[in-house]
């Protein structure tokens, strides 16, 4: 994930509005149709806000799509890929669903927790890595165990491979 130098903390920039407009064009121009654009709009906004969704930014999305803010908060809190609390510079999502679990995901989680000194759901004190809790199936079972780091997939994980990946994260 790229982090804009100065993450936006309020309003929608012109570029963001243009990107959301592209999504809106794919749905009917009705209140329900506009509601369909919530997920892509939140992706756009989260990408530019340091990997999480401050309240003012969610409110801006709600305002732009003509929805009550609570309807946007519901979506933002429902999906694991959105965060409504501040996160580290990198988000590490280790899949613990059935295929990965059968292939030793629990050991991987334990290894990562030990190495980073944090538990699932926490962020390292230096703000480098957030270990996301309860990541569900990411549809890469053929390469189990796997994980998602920011926006990239890593498959067939071993402790050694993970150490290398984590060390490369700034």
């Amino acid at each position, binding site marked *: 994930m790229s982090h804009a130098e100065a993450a936006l903390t309020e309003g929608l920039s012109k570029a963001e509005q243009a990107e959301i407009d592209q999504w809106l064009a794919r749905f009917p121009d009705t209140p329900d149709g506009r509601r369909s654009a919530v997920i892509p709009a939140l992706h756009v906004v989260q990408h530019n806000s340091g990997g999480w969704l401050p309240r003012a930014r969610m409110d801006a999305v709600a305002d732009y799509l003509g929805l*009550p*803010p609570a*309807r946007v*908060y*519901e979506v933002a*809190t*429902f999906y694991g890929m959105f965060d409504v609390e501040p996160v580290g510079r990198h988000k590490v999502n280790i899949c613990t669903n059935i295929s990965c679990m059968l292939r030793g995901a629990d050991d991987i989680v334990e290894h990562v927790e030990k190495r980073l000194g944090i538990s699932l759901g926490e962020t390292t004190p230096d703000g480098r890595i957030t270990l996301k809790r309860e990541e569900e199936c990411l549809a890469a079972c053929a390469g189990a165990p796997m994980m998602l780091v920011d926006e990239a997939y890593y498959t067939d994980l071993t402790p050694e491979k993970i150490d290398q990946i984590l060390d490369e994260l700034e």
Partner: protein
Amino acid sequence: MSAEVKTQAPETVTVEIDGRAIEAPKGASIIAVADEHGIDIPRFCYHSKLSAPANCRMCLVDVEMGGRPAPKPLPACITTVADGMVVRTASERALKAQKGVMEFLLINHPLDCPICDQGGECELQDLALGYGRSVSRFVERKRVVKDENLGPLIATEMTRCIHCTRCVRFLDEVAGTSELGAMFRGEHTEISTLVGSGVHSELSGNVIDLCPVGALTSRPYRFSARSWEMLSHPGVAPHDCLGSNIDLHQVRGTVKRVVPRDNEAINECWISDRDRFSYEGIYSAERLAAPQIREGDTWHTVDWQTAIEAAANGLRDVVAQHGGDALGALVSPSASLEEMYLTARIVRALGSDHIDTRLRRGDFRDGVAGDGFPGLTGSIAGLEAVDAALIVGGYPRHEQPLANHRLRKAAIRGGAIMALNPRGFDWNIDLAVDAVVPAGEMARTLAAVVRAVAGRTGQAEPEALAGWIGDEAPDAQATAMAGHLLDADNAVVLMGGLAEAHPAGAELRWLAGRLAAMTQTDYGELTDGSNAAGGWIAGAVPGRRADGQAASGLDARAMVTRPRRGYLLNGIEPEHDHFDGAATIEALAHADCVVAMAAFDSPALRAGADVLLPVATLGETAGTLVNAEGQWQTFAGCAKPQGDARPGWRVLRVLANVLELDGFNYQAPDEIHHEIRAVAGEAKAATPTADGAPTPQPVEGMLRVGWPAMFGGDPLVRHAPSLQASVHAGEAVVEIAPEDAERLGIAEGDSVVVEQAGVTRTLPARPSDQVPAGSFWLAAGLVHSEGLGGLIGPATLRVDGGGE
């Protein structure tokens, strides 16, 4: 359900539910049909007034179509009935499904009913008795949810929540505020605002009734009684002209809470927060506990006999020395019909016609209508069926919340709801036209709409119209408003509080009357208080006696601008409950004798009055309120009056007896009620006439514009602590147009000095683009906004400390 409905009569279908053949409207849900025929299907998320999300699964029933059973039980709340459908609500398979759902619901629900406020009236508790297991098989840890502060009215215990989402859907669909949501997912789902913004809807208390468990309960009532020890008494809410039906719940003579009583024609199954929580005022520490009389500057607590004699002597002396003309009566527009009638009879027997209940009216040039009471010519329920409505000077969302709810439903159906106001409001209705003009321009704007109607229909426009707008052509907005009214089959023009308080109110009423006549729409007034119609019927207005005879007394404004020697006050606080608080205080201060019947004590009342008579309030007395559509709604007393307070009708009867007036030997309020019925006969709402066009009167200079805040309209709500702790109450703020703020050098939060009628007040200011330039908004009924001049009237504004 994939079966196609094949029926010859598309309107109704025949279904069999639990062995009974039932004719039902096509498209109805199984649960709605079953409810109508008294067949009980358990449910948590379904509510007849809300959308059905089918998320609790408690209403699973066995369905068979064309001899083929559905592969699994179906939710009765979203499965629609079809011809030939067979439904079994209590078959083995249905019961097994229902019991299974119940077991899942109880997994995370605390099993501590004895310490839960909902215990005894809990839908989950009731259904668990029928469908639950006696012993839980669940041994794991239960989930715990942190409580959220939703404000002073709703208490939360979110661990008890079963995620039925009734509260979420209510705020979304009925209240239109969408303040709550189902946040997070699955096991972690929480009903919350997420950001801690609270719930502030004017109808928020209804989520307490909707919540099937003890997650959302009433904060003021919390832990103060148990449902099974209370007795329920039907009552009528005394705060707006709808007269919402309520039940008062009482234990040993103390009102513990108020809940809605279903009445589809008025309040459906809802009530506003004002109607629900105002009962707290009954137990305010400021209740007037005993009769008081003044001797010089000292007050003495006396017995009733002494107080009534002092009152009678005082009034008799005024009349003996100065004639009946020196006496005036100001009666709350929320007083009962019986009290209004007795007050009017006493005052008239003493030789005065000076009595009025229209205390907040700003313009009396149009007098008292001869042909009917102020109110709606249509029905309250009919408001939701309009195709167009024009609200002139009103914000029903705060004035009559459930009338606003009807209009909101009309707007959702596609009706064009329009408003013409001297400030912008936070509507929960998508307005077709939101005309915000300076207060002084309202009559001109309305005149332009009349001209637009005349232009489009080819009718002759009223001659007087030129007085407002010369030969100006109507602008696009006026043309649009005229178009919506003309295009509608069923429309209404509604007058609200800001038209009532408008110094050119007579002009607004006349123009709105012409507009209604020319567009063939209904004309209605959403009146102040809960019994304005009753004031007309009981003859508690200067221009009309109860028997319909015309009279000519002084109106509420004239009674204070041309002060009387003696006053009889009933249920009012002079600094709050009159159009011009400053003039009222002044007039009372200089009178020889002021007798005040009051439920609440206050310094302003003591400053003006000579005799204070404590009277009963909500729940403590019997009476009748006539609502805006002319319904006479009678209620009985159920609570013990506080202190030495007595019902108002009884006080007036004894006063009349001591004054030795004839015909006041009533033993019970229903005798008075029947007498009014016999004297007044049937009445309808007034319809406006074309005669007597008022001359346009310019309203110029800096104007204060205001109307009581939602929880500031009468003494009872002003003394209800939980309502006063809400965001709708508190300290008054001066809202001013940004351009005026810049001109006067006022920034957000600055103190400004408001001067009206010689009274000054220092208040915080807030620039707001909702307020047109040339006026500022200052609501009445708030802390520090009392005792000022006219609700809409001239005022000056300056920055605190600047330019003395």
